[in-house]
């Protein structure tokens, strides 16, 4: 367990997002990040679980320090992914930030019940989006001490 600020390697962030536009926007937003972030991207739930469990092509995938999860995903829904992560003994302690278009109370409540660490509605305009990503950066990657496992 080490402090992120004292960590020499880049922060591994897994973005589970099916929209390339959002992926690009996220990348754009993280360009100005204070810490060095390595953004891993998967586009559906099945792929996400394969990445996390280092199966198939992801056998060498890094263990993420933070997961950014969209709820509406093809193949395997974001809610199921969240559930699987939180029920897994090895993955359960990775912080998951829900990043979604849905502002529905039901979704929010359900996500927190599934032990999402943070729920963020994607702002509809660019500035908002940029701010959100940057605040994730500063809050989760700079302020909060994250549990880390030696790779």
């Amino acid at each position: 367990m080490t402090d992120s600020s004292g960590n020499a390697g880049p922060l591994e962030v897994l973005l589970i997002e099916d929209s390339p536009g959002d992926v690009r926007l996220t990348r754009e937003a993280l360009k100005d990040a204070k810490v060095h972030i390595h953004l891993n991207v998967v586009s559906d739930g099945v792929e996400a679980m394969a990445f996390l469990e280092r199966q198939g092509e992801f056998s060498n995938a890094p263990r993420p320090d933070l997961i950014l999860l969209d709820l509406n995903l093809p193949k395997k829904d974001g809610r199921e992914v969240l559930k699987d992560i939180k029920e897994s003994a090895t993955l359960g302690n990775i912080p998951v930030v829900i990043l979604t278009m849905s502002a529905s109370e039901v979704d929010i409540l359900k996500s927190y019940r599934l032990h999402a660490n943070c729920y963020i509605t994607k702002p509809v305009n660019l500035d908002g989006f940029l701010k959100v990503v940057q605040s994730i950066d500063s809050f989760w990657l700079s302020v909060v001490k994250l549990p880390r496992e030696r790779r």
Partner: protein
Amino acid sequence: MRLPLVRKIQFGFSAVLAVLLVVGSVAYRDLLASAHSERWVQHTHEVLEHLATLQSAIPNIETGYRGRALTGAETSQSSRASLALVEHEEMTLRALTVDNPGQQRRLATLAALMEQTIRLDETLVRLRQAGGPKAAAELIQTGQGERILQQSRAVVSDMQVEERGLLLQRGADAERRRRQTQAALIFGSVAGLLIATLAAWRVQREFSRRGRAERASLESEERFRVVLAGVQDYAIFTLDPHGTVISWNTGAERIKGYKAAEIIGQNFSCFYPQEDIDQGIPQEALRTAAANGKSATECWRVRKDGSRFWASLLITAARDASGNLVGFSEISRDMSERQETEAKYRGLLEAAPDAMIVVNQAGKIVLLNLQAEKQFGYHRDELLGQEIRNIIPEGFAERLIADGTRTAAEALAQQIGTGIELSGHRKDGGDFPIEIMLSPLKNAEGILVTAAIRDISVRKDAEKHLLKTVGELKRSNEELQQFAYVASHDLQEPLRMVASYTQLLAKRYTGRLDPDADEYIAYAVDGCNRMQALIQDLLTYSRAGTDTRSRREISSEDALREALTNLRATIKESGAVVTHDSLPAITMDDTQLVQVFQNLVGNAVKYRSPEIPRVHVTATKNAGNECVFAVRDNGVGIDPRYFERIFILFQRLHGRNEFTGTGIGLAICKKIVERLGGRIWVESQPAKGSTFYFALPQGEVP
């Protein structure tokens, strides 16, 4: 004495009369006898008077006799007069005492003595004339004349004694008769008086006894009369033994049409049709009643106006205590009224829009109407007397049957007033849904059940159709809801891309391209922004008021405070003053009320006039148990012709450069309020401010 009063009175007076007759006749007889006695007494007195005269005349004869003997004179005038007087008296007495033989004999003796006297006198006269005074004296000295006169006087004295005796006897006799008459009169009067008094006392006592009895019977009779007089349904009247009407009640007046004053005194035969009168039926009825005590018949009767009605009547003979017929009473009823009632009932049955079937407790049909024939496809005759089971196979007959736990009446009572849905069976074999309503009908045969049977096929179809339509509506509504949500949500995703990248473009490339490009990009960004705002609002609108689960009692004041907190930036920026009265607690979802307040107060501040915005919130309860909130402002006001339009989604009254917004706020308010069963409206005039009202029903709301 059980004799009637009149007899008693007759008897008493007869007795008095008899006594008076006896007394009168006795008195009259005594009076006659008394008068007779008096006459005899009178007669005796007369006789005595004549005897006295005679007695006094005799000495005169003697004196004359002596004188002549002395003087020798011829028989004197006085002597002759005396003799004539004596003779006259003697004659009178002879007439008077003609009924008394003793006196007559004495009078004869006297007459003989007088004859001797006269002859002696003549002898004396001759002697004196022949022999001189001496011869005469010698003759006188023989005393012959004196003896004769003495004998005469003795005879007269005897007669006087006799008459005096008679007088005494006759006076006593008259006195006795007088006393007898007096006694008879006194006795008769006293007896008459006694009898009359007794009779008067008896009569008086009888009258007072009868009076009491009569008063008592009058009282009960009066009560009875009042009851009878009031009877409406029956004609009740009384007749004398000849059939003349004596009394008349209200029912009789109503049924027969005569007023009491018109008919009392008339013969009751006028109630009969002419042909019956000709056959002597009215008298026959009275005869039967008199003979048997009563006569009950049904026959035609005639009203005053000549119309006939079928009457049921009972004539009863009335007799007094001694069994004498004193009259009759008649109780009659207009049977056509009952028939009319039946006809009315039948009319009612036929006029009913539903099939009406009357069933007895055995489950047999006793009456039905045309609708029932039509509904079940039978002819009336095919159903009368048949089991109700034939046309309503289940659920009807069972409901009428008594069992261990309930009587038939109770079984029926349980069904009254509730519609029972059953199935009807037509003659052609088809079944159709029915609803029956049962009601009891009491009659002489027991309880009948009237069943109103309604063919509810149409209603059932309509119900089905309605349910289907409601289902469809619900589904389409849900789909619409879903569509609005999904559309806005899914539209938002690509839009966000467009917006984000045009914005990124603007961010990264403004000033690096030419001015036209900058302008184009600016319009694209603006369009995106507005599009996003609309979609956001649409989402909000589609969600508004959908969640009614969290309704509870909340403080509307707290809701307003929260709305004001949400609006604090706007309020602060505009310098608005928002005030409120005390607001009630109401039952609803607090976030929804916050939303409504926020929109209304937000609008009030937003559409402000140049003055400082002043907003005042009040709440009152109205008669319809609604809580009416009012949000009053001093803003720009609204032209009344837009009152409806402002509540429509995305309808705006102002240009975008005047006031911002999509026109969603009032539409959301309207949706929320109406979802709660309330109403929302506005009262306003341009430049004079607006007041927005919303009324929320209190109590149970669906």
